[in-house]
């Protein structure tokens, strides 16, 4: 173990002992980039890593809002501007009761290196609130978004920081946020936010992008292992946009997604979730805000497993599309036991550190991390920014083609970086090193 990394990890652990998710992400990352630090002692001399694992700015603010009965509530708002070496800060806003400074820091960290990997001019950031939108009326959500933006607008801007949606923040919330931003600044600044509706500067292909990104990356993995996606069975967790997009694209390419999951359990549909009817039902189920998948089983007469995760189902490919740390060691053991050949994390840090180690050490499983397989969403955001900047809109086919090209570049640069640092065919090691090299080069050049 490299001494510099060891010391830095220890310092972080002492200082941020209570921030488990952030520490998990940071320490895991430091471990991954060790081969680069070992080779070049100048990183230590500049103490560059210390400025790469912590955010440039962090904002925490209070968000008072009034419910439909006239009762006041106070939520907590956050924005972590992690790194701007490669472009303006960019990352999602998450409205979920689990949101705190720790989770936002962790997401901003992951976002920085995910964004860098795309090669597009994007820095890294994240933000959100502990506000829970699930049981709120449209009017309550509007009031909350307006109050939230009244604080946030000071810190963002099309050349400074461009938030987008995440969990609990969809097109509707982005619309409310953008309207308030426009009102406060007096400018129609399209690039203040991404994820807007297509009528107010949003990009075509938004709904499909995240799922397509994961499948395009998977296709490259399969091709390099003389395999093809056609005829494969896939287990997916979650039932949001990402999961829906994976089901749809997989079906188009002749593969079959057989599971979806929610907080209530998972459904198993051996015929595959691919018909238009089923896909539309998934979208409607998500839009109902009930946050459960059981209705799918009732509607299509398939099995529902209450309180369980879908990783025990024997499939060829597993793609977690839900939340962080959903795949633990037990699940990893089940996946390996079922001879799952490909594991592609599509949602950020879906796998615990131990589970990932286990999967990667299994010689028969080929793994991809969320920084690569989960980058479809942010690539789309970046392409939305390009269209806004040019004041033009591209067709769906144009967006799809550009997205595909960026994913190919991510794959190629990851494979090349792993090769260069003696890791062999290691997509995750390659992701981390390739993105590290880009960010560090930009920071050194700018004396940041």
């Amino acid at each position: 173990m490299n001494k510099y990394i060891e010391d830095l990890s220890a310092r972080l652990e002492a200082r941020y002992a209570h921030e488990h998710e952030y520490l998990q992400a940071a320490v895991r990352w430091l471990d991954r980039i060790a081969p680069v630090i070992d080779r070049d002692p100048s990183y230590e001399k500049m103490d560059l890593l210390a400025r790469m694992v912590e955010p440039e700015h962090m904002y925490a603010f209070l968000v008072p809002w009034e419910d439909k009965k006239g009762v006041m509530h106070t939520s907590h708002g956050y924005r972590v501007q992690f790194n701007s070496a490669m472009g303006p800060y960019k990352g999602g806003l998450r409205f979920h009761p689990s949101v705190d400074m720790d989770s936002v820091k962790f997401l901003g960290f992951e976002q920085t290196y995910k964004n860098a990997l795309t090669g597009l001019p994007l820095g890294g950031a994240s933000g959100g609130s502990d506000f829970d939108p699930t049981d709120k009326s449209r009017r309550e959500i509007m009031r909350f978004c307006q109050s939230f933006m009244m604080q946030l607008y000071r810190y963002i801007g099309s050349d400074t920081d461009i938030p987008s949606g995440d969990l609990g923040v969809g097109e509707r919330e982005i619309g409310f946020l953008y309207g308030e931003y426009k009102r406060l600044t007096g400018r129609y600044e399209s690039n203040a936010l991404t994820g807007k509706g297509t009528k107010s500067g949003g990009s075509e292909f938004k709904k499909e992008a995240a799922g397509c990104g994961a499948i395009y990356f998977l296709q490259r993995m399969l091709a390099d292992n003389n395999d093809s996606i056609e005829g494969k069975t896939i287990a997916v967790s979650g039932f949001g946009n990402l999961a829906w997009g994976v089901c749809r694209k997989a079906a188009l390419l002749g593969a079959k997604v057989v599971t979806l999951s929610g907080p209530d359990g998972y459904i198993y549909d051996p015929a595959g979730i691919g018909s238009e009817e089923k896909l539309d039902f998934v979208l409607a189920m998500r839009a109902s805000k009930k946050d459960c998948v059981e209705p799918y089983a009732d509607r299509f007469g398939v099995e529902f497993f209450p309180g369980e995760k879908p990783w025990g189902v024997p499939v060829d490919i597993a793609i977690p599309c839900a939340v962080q740390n959903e795949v633990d060691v037990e699940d990893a053991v089940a996946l390996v036991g079922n001879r799952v050949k490909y594991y592609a994390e599509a949602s950020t840090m879906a796998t615990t550190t131990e589970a990932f180690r286990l999967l990667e050490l299994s010689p028969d499983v080929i793994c991809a991390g969320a920084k690569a397989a989960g980058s479809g969403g942010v690539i789309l955001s970046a392409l939305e920014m390009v269209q806004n900047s040019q004041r033009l809109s591209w067709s769906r086919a144009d967006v799809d083609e550009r997205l595909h090209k960026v994913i190919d570049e991510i794959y190629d640069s990851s494979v090349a970086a792993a090769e260069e640092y003696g890791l062999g065919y290691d997509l995750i090691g390659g992701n981390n090193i390739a993105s590290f090299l880009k960010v560090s080069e930009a920071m050194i050049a700018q004396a940041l």
Partner: protein
Amino acid sequence: MKQKSKRYQKINEEVKEMSFENPYLQGLMERVIRRNPAEPEFHQAVKEVLTSLDPVMTVHPEYIKEGVMECLVEPERIVKFRVPWEDDEGNIHVNRGFRVQFSSAIGPYKGGLRFHPSVYEGIVKFLGFEQIFKNSLTGLPIGGGKGGSDFDPKGKSDSEVRRFCQSFMSELFKYIGSDTDVPAGDIGVGGREIGYLFGQYKRLSNEFTGVLTGKGLTFGGSLARTEATGYGLCYYADNMLRDNGHDFDGATVVISGSGNVAIYACEKATEYGAKVVAMSDSNGYIYDKNGIDLDCIKQLKEVERKRISEYMNEHPEAEYHEGCRDIWQIPCSIALPCATQNELDKNSALALIKNGCFAVAEGANMPCTPEAVDALHANNILFAPAKAANAGGVATSALEMSQNSMRYSWSFEDVDDKLKTIMTDLYHNTTEAAAEYGMAGNLVAGANIAGFLKVADSMMSYGVV
């Protein structure tokens, strides 16, 4: 009192020297000299442009009536500031910083920053004035500006350069911006300095924008920028040659210099079928009858940073000569001076003519002396002036701005294609302008006139501002 009269005497002499037949231009030149005393470089630049514009004034008296010329010779704004910085031993030094925002008639101010002990207001004004016309010629929306400092980066440590750049930008950032003024590099300001300046601008403004060009590829730089000036030179020259029944194919070419411009001019000329037989550095030149081995030059200059004389180790059959003047004695049909200013004088021009050279295209800034240019013109040698022929560099800077504005990067081929189109258009604009004002074939005049007209017409449409 005595000293003062001596100064007036000197100015009067200079006024007499810079005479025009056109009384209006004569008066204008005189005012420029009296209002900007002791800035001979600036006077010289104004004089050259006004000479080319003489015929335009006859055809378009409205430029005179509307005061376009008076406005054009006066910078819109000059910023001059103190730059204190600390060296590695803890000593404080103070340099001067400059930014001349000369003309924003056709776009935000754009021009390089030069860090060199010779920098003072006169030099920066001269360079900024020239930049207006060069930028205009590219056809892209960029005005003219220039800046820099009398700081000497030679012998400074990396940390000292960084501290200087940060202090310099701490003042400059108030005056620039992606829609206001977009500086680039020049002498003493390369990729490293641009990086430091950009980082400091970003910290001070909390904005990531295309406020500087010449950036690294990881933070908004453009592909094909290194190649741009050299390639652009050949694209321009190729148009000129074909228009006059010549061709690079099979031609023998002499190129002076071995920096970015020379290397990539050599690469493109060779690709077009020419044989480049000589290249040089500040110590001397090599002559290789079989054609220069460019890979060897690239290895020496871009990787090992060695002298060009080392070429002989790989190619003992070639010749090495100390000193650079005589490179133009080598028989060739096309000469591309890509080294430095005033490197090709009248004698060199006469030697080229005697040896049957039919075209000279300037890759460096003003490498041919005025006497050499006169000799080339007098003998009907095709001559492409730097202002037009080496505009590929600044054109690619403008393409970097386009890419930053749209938050997207073009591929190498995309940038190269656009560069080629720009240089071709530029050639046609210069020849047409020269022909229209009765100086067909004189690309020096064509470049000044074409560059001027676009700026002047924009100024007219804004009214008196």
